[in-house]
């Protein structure tokens, strides 16, 4: 598949166009010459070692948390949470 995805599609923002101001920032990077082109040579080691991963535990949400999640749901009808229309006609 060779479908070109434009930034409006990638961003899910209708009619979105690249900004001239932002492009000027990117031009600086394009013209920069890093002495170290190996991005894997990261000096800020924020990645977590596999030996240090937290336990994969299931934590039951509190009643209040569940209630708030339901309250935040954008659309409700007759006691049901209504999702966006997913079937294209």
């Amino acid at each position, binding site marked *: 598949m060779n479908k070109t995805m434009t930034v409006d599609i990638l*961003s899910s923002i*209708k009619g979105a166009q690249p900004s001239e101001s932002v492009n000027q920032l990117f031009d600086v990077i394009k013209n920069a010459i890093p*002495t170290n082109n190996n991005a894997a040579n990261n000096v800020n080691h924020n990645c977590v070692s596999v030996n240090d991963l937290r336990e994969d535990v299931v934590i039951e949400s509190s009643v209040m948390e569940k209630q708030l999640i339901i309250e935040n749901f954008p659309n409700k009808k007759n006691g049901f949470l209504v999702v966006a229309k997913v079937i294209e*006609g």
Partner: protein
Amino acid sequence: MDSQIKKIHQQLVSKQITCTALVQEKLDLLKQNTYNSVNSLLDTLALELAAKVDAKIAKGETIGLLEGIPFGIKDVYMLQGTYATASSELLKKYKSPYTATAIQKLLDAGAIPLVKENCDSFGHGSSSENTIFGAVKNAIDPTLVAGGSSGGSAVNVAKEYTVFSIGGDTGGSIRQPAGYNHIYGFKPTYGRISRFGLMAYASSTDCVGPLAKSIEDIRIVLNVMSGKDPKDQTSVASTEISEDAIATSAVKTIGYFKNFIESDAIDNQIKADFLTTIEKLKAKGIAVAALDFFKSDILVSTYYTLAMAETASNLSRLDGTNYGNRIEAENLIETYAVTRSENFSEETKRRIVGGNQVLSQGFSDEIYLKGLALRDQISENFSKDFEEVDIILSPVTPSTPPKIGDSLKDPLAMYLSDAYTVGFSLGQLPTLTVPQGTSTGLQITAAKNNDELVLQFANFLKDTI
């Protein structure tokens, strides 16, 4: 200024004031204020908590130092059951289902949240004008911007509507508004405070931090919020910073970046004031090194490239499916697109689009990966600098705060105004803004995890210049 926290604690313990009266007074000030610093008031919760503190004092029970101290929260943090809008149309009615770790730690210590504070939407801005709640006005001159993105938090502290506030700093969002409003604002070492429950902007530089009127209050609040958190795997363990440890400065050598000061972009007065500060420090026997550093445009461009890429990814979840102001359209894809188009601000859309540009095929090698390589070089540069100097001192901003309305007209100028703050974010370094030295303050930076030295030098500076 001395610690406000300790002063109020003493007044509560000695029954000079009641916590309810204190909280009510601050709520009234927040309600009546004309600076647009408030998104929502937490009056019911705050008064309930205040009554509990008063009951405890009445029974003769001991209260902790933060117990009953009123504080503010930038509106990008979760506090269960309260609005968390990110100053955006999309989340205007969103209620936090849970509470952020940093905020929970303050609640556990007895501090009382009063207000969710206005800010640039999703942290996208340096002026607190990119918000649906109206531009935040500067505490010193209301015709000027408050700075951003934690503008509401800085103004509330400066006006003493809150004793301290919790901001978020990704590229300068605590330090710059602190400088614009003449208060202290601290961005700790990345990972010192858990990010769990902070709405993600750019995850690799997002930091939680306090704004306050004294170094001591910054220290107290920092200690409470710090620590490793299983809910944020980038968080790190740290040791408590004692009052004694920061009382006397061990700093012998400081550095500053030559190109920051020799730049054409710096305001003449800020430059002159900064150089006067340097001379005063030399007169006190501190050795000063003028350091080479990356050009400002490289720093700003590297930061924005990475921050936009990360925010494009982080904000992709905001599509109106499970929460947010969904706008229904003919199918799912259209629903996403219309919801995001109508609910995101122009600045947020600009950053999402920029992020998707640099992450897309054909551009990622040329821009994004190169940005990552540049960040590594910047960090390496810092590591070398801190072999030579204990502290790096910088102005916070090249210019004084702009007039309200000017920043939105020229996004590039706004991005470039972050030139002195973004480098330390990329380096993940602890940096404190102090309201001294120039009209927008000074930044004190130390090596990674050396937050204690930053506060120590700030104390020295307070008594020196």
